[in-house]
């Protein structure tokens, strides 16, 4: 389970989970789960397009995720959910078309959608670390404005925060992060880590910093347990990531409700 080819999976997986936990804290705070679900699908289309044209997948991942993020961010003002939905299906459809034109093998499709953590090459660790650092720095810089804007949009605007700028900054970070998570846990599942653990973490604490750290910790734990279970059972990692995230949230919610009722 800790043999050399698994080492990369553990390292990259941990980094990805840390990032997903951190991004997810803000996603849940801002109520932008739908966007967080749509952007990775942009990355999926990009990866599929890159396969078709024959360039390095990273370029496709980043560029398409960024386009999707900017499209959603720009139209966030009115009926944002419709814009998000349309961006999402357009990206998925593009991905499907690219894949069928390039006649990709079924496992390739599944890997892009559901991830292939065991196939992470050692060369990608540097890239993962670099992108991860950029995202972490961006989130750190936006930390207080993001919280302020999410908690009380009117007040933050009155204090001179530009909501569009902030939204764009956040969506771009989300896009960059997705480009990193998609190859590891897949387009559909990078989302699970972004919502389940952070939503659970914020029920456990009142402090924003503790909620952020807790979200990252729960996310890493979810991924570690998933990799271990996947190794032991030979079933896909994505299955465990998706279901464990949901179980985690539901369990924490039930527990906090119970203790609140008793108190």
């Amino acid at each position, binding site marked *: 389970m800790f043999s050399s080819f698994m080492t990369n999976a553990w390292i990259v997986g941990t980094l990805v989970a840390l990032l997903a936990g951190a991004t997810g804290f803000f996603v849940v705070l801002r109520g932008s789960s739908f966007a967080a679900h749509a952007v990775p699908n942009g990355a999926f289309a990009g990866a599929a397009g890159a396969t078709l044209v024959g360039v390095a997948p990273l370029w496709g991942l980043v560029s398409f995720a960024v386009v999707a993020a900017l499209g959603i961010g720009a139209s966030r003002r009115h009926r944002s959910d*419709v814009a*998000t939905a349309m961006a999402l299906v357009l990206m998925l459809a593009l991905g*499907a078309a690219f894949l069928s034109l390039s006649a990709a093998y079924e*496992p390739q*499709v599944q890997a892009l959608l559901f991830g292939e953590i065991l196939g992470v090459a050692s060369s990608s660790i540097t890239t993962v670390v670099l992108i991860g650092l950029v995202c972490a720095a961006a989130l750190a810089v936006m930390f207080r404005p993001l919280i302020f804007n999410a908690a009380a949009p009117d007040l933050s605007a009155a204090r001179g925060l530009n909501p569009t700028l902030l939204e764009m900054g956040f969506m771009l970070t989300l896009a960059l992060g997705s480009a990193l998570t998609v190859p590891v846990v897949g387009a559909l599942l990078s989302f699970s880590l972004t919502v389940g653990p952070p939503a659970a973490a914020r029920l456990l604490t009142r402090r924003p910093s503790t909620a952020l750290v807790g979200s990252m910790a729960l996310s890493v734990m979810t991924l570690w347990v998933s990799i271990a279970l996947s190794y032991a059972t030979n079933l896909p990692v994505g299955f465990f990531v998706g279901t464990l995230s949901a179980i985690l949230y539901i369990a924490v919610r039930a527990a906090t409700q119970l203790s609140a009722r008793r108190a």
Partner: protein
Amino acid sequence: MHWLFEPGLWSNVAVRTGMGVGVAVAVVSALVGLFTVMRSQSFAGHALADVAMAGGAGAGVLGVSPLAGFVLGSLAGAGAMEAIGVERVRQRDVATGVVLGAATGLSALFLYLITLNSSSTGSTQLILFGSLFSVSNSTFLVVLALSVLVVVALASLGRPLLFASLSPDAAKARGVAVSRVTLSFTLLVAVTVGLSSIVIGAVLSTALLIGPPAAALRLGRRMSTTLFVASMLGVVAVLLGVVLSYDSFYWWSSHRALPVSFCVVVLIVFELLLVSLYRAMSRRRERVVV
């Protein structure tokens, strides 16, 4: 018309059945979708699609009809969302996300099991992105029956639903059982999503559900015209999409056709952009007049 309709399009039984299914589903999706858009429930609609995907994949593992999997999966997802579900918008966002995440996890498992157990390729694409041309005649009849059922149910639910969507408290005061109405509607969305999964695939069914109604809402002011326009936009996108997809087989020397779902989605997005553009231009003209 040969430049548009490649030879053999109309004589192909699979194409004709596909078009029949497509039209029925486009209409139902547009009608149900209009309420979904008005209630700002696009995310929930999409999450149901992802649960339908898990259902379809599960059906593939068990070897039963994908339609049953799509519809039952989606219904189960609707139940789960209502169970976790909460009134507050932000929490609804999280509850929807959690169900969606769990569903994709299950899909990963089922699709993996399918690739393990069967030698047939393409089932992932089929479940995710649809299989309009492989719809059998018996499935067509089931789709038709379910479509009629949904439309009738929606018609009887329409007024209270509209009321409850616009002002839940006022509706409650007038004796509308808001939670029951909402639940019934969610179940209708679930069935609709299951149906359209057959046409353009589970993850893309959101396009038919959200796109045409969103475009129609920008055009019509009256409910009845909006419903009609939405249905028409949906039907046009599906029919034109089928034709384009069929034709695209001849476009490349490699003879790889574009997937139907891709063509339909692109056409829907195109319709939406066109309508938005029209709206923006007519609004500018109004401003000049005033």
